[in-house]
């Protein structure tokens, strides 16, 4: 079990966190049961669509009209067909490439900029900080038309440049800069000054002292950016003009028009597009959920 980190309460009270006071005890058992029933019902609503998607993807087409939880003759034929007739493998590669590139840039630049805005004194600091934060007010939808203009001008919507076209809006994020700056507040200035006296370069101080002390924040930032970039839809849909350069969500969306009656094919494609990230989520679930709570409350 997780240790209870509610440090404001004395230990005795902490252990009573869910069982409440003695006057409550009689009702608590019944209430606990009801709580679990309600939560399980809710969890079923959340999980069933995913299970149904997976189950459908293993069913041969004739079985779709039957209401059966388990396929009678499970098959991988749908997967073979989807992989053979579409560019799924290429879309995986594109999504991984774009998400890794953006995430690497975001982690490095957001950390460096957050560090500078927190630990340096220089003219124009407030102006720059406010200027970066102000961009949070502007929704992406307002920028896509000028971005598209710019991309057409520089031919970022053609050939291999489409990778850059998809990725460029997200290589630095204002929210990440703000988050990192908050975390660098917790790094004592004396530590940096000590390194300065020892003759370490400014870049070295950031890399060897700043970065290691804010690793957890960087990890949270990295995970969110990876997920966000992986699922990004509107901008990649606009900028990627050739099938070979689609990311997964964009490629997947074209199954909509192609085959509205072949649900086994659509569910197979949906499974292929969503299962890898769900696995990543399962592996990192603790960090991701802790990160949401952390960044959400700070923001």
């Amino acid at each position, binding site marked *: 079990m997780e240790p209870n980190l*509610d440090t*404001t309460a004395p230990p005795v009270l902490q252990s009573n966190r*869910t069982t409440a006071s003695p*006057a*409550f005890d009689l009702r608590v058992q019944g209430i606990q049961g009801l*709580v*679990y029933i309600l*939560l399980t019902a*809710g969890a079923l609503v*959340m*999980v069933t669509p*995913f299970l*149904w*998607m997976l189950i*459908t993807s293993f069913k041969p087409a004739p079985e779709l*009209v039957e*209401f059966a939880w388990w396929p009678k003759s499970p098959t991988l034929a749908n997967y073979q067909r989807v992989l053979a007739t579409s560019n799924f493998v290429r879309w995986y590669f594109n999504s991984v490439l774009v998400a890794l590139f953006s995430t690497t840039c975001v982690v490095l630049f957001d950390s460096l*900029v957050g560090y*500078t805005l927190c630990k*340096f004194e*220089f*003219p124009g600091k407030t102006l720059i900080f406010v200027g970066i934060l102000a*961009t949070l*007010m*502007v*929704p992406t*939808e*307002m*920028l*896509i*038309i*000028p971005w*598209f*203009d*710019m991309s*057409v001008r520089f031919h970022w919507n053609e050939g291999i440049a489409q990778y850059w076209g998809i990725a*460029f809006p997200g*290589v*630095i994020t*204002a929210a990440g800069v703000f988050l990192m700056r908050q975390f660098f507040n917790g790094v004592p200035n004396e530590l940096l000054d000590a390194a300065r006296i020892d003759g370490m370069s400014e870049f070295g101080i*950031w890399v060897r002292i700043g970065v290691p002390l804010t690793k957890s924040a960087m990890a949270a930032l990295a995970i969110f950016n990876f997920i966000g970039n992986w699922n990004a*839809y*509107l901008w990649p849909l606009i900028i990627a003009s050739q099938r070979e350069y689609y990311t*997964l*969500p964009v490629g*997947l969306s074209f*199954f909509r028009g192609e085959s509205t009656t072949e*649900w086994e094919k659509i*569910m197979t494609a949906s499974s292929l*597009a*969503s299962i890898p*990230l*769900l696995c990543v*989520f399962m592996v990192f*679930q*603790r960090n991701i*959920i802790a990160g949401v*709570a952390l960044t*959400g*409350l700070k923001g």
Partner: protein
Amino acid sequence: MKLTLQQRQILWAYVFLSVALVFFVIIRWYPALLSFNIAFRDWNTFKGTGTWVGLENYAAIWHDFLKPRSDVRAAFTNTLSYVVYGVPAQMVLALAIALLLDRIRAFSTFFRVAYFAPYVTSAVAVAFVWNWLYLPQDGLLAQIFDLLHIPEQPFTKSPKQALPSITAVAVWQTLGYSVIIYLAGIKQIPFLYYEAARIDGSSGWHLFRNITLPLLNPVIVYLTVLSTISFLRLFALVQNMSPQGTGGPLKSTTTVVLEVYRKGFSSYDMGYAAALTVILFFVILLITVVQLRFLTRRFEY
């Protein structure tokens, strides 16, 4: 040339900020300002210029808005409906789930993972899965309704039910995020407050009403704004859950962002689309400013 320590710091700060400054000026500030400019023009993307037409694009939007069955009117009224149905549903459901999760110890990780999973899934995949669940006759919901002897529902196939059906999916997808934030907020409330109130004879509903709810106020305001903005920007779900991706049936599900996409990138009427995004910008700005006012109002205990 020998620099003082202070000058060296200034120099390094600007070296460290250089890439970011270029990025924020060219990729964020300039396009934002250019959007306002494009909204005043009959813009041609492929030439990169356009004749100045003043407020004509806004006038055209207004003119379309006044027409009873126009795309734009549908887009604005539908977007408002998504917010009006979706935000309260999301806020109440998420708070209820967070309160329940706060009461349990066993399986709490399992439940959190289950509720959060849709949030990390691509909206396109989510849309397709729900299209399949909502499908009349062969869909899972139709089959379950059949077992329970509930009459079959058309869901996204009917102009009446399509918007609520998509709202439900949007709530389903983003619920987990709000749950986690609520839960973190609830855990921050000192347990001593509840103990003290119990000694004074309060219980159950009173504890929730007089301690939990007021102390959660900043979290509630933050989440309300966040979810309002996300409903105002609804696009991927609607595009992939309506026939031909056009916000049907009969325009009943189209949103402002979907119209931006269609006007801008199907009809290439960029000036009109840019004007729509400017309107969206001001709506979001207004909501954010209202949020800041609410958040600065502190509760005293």
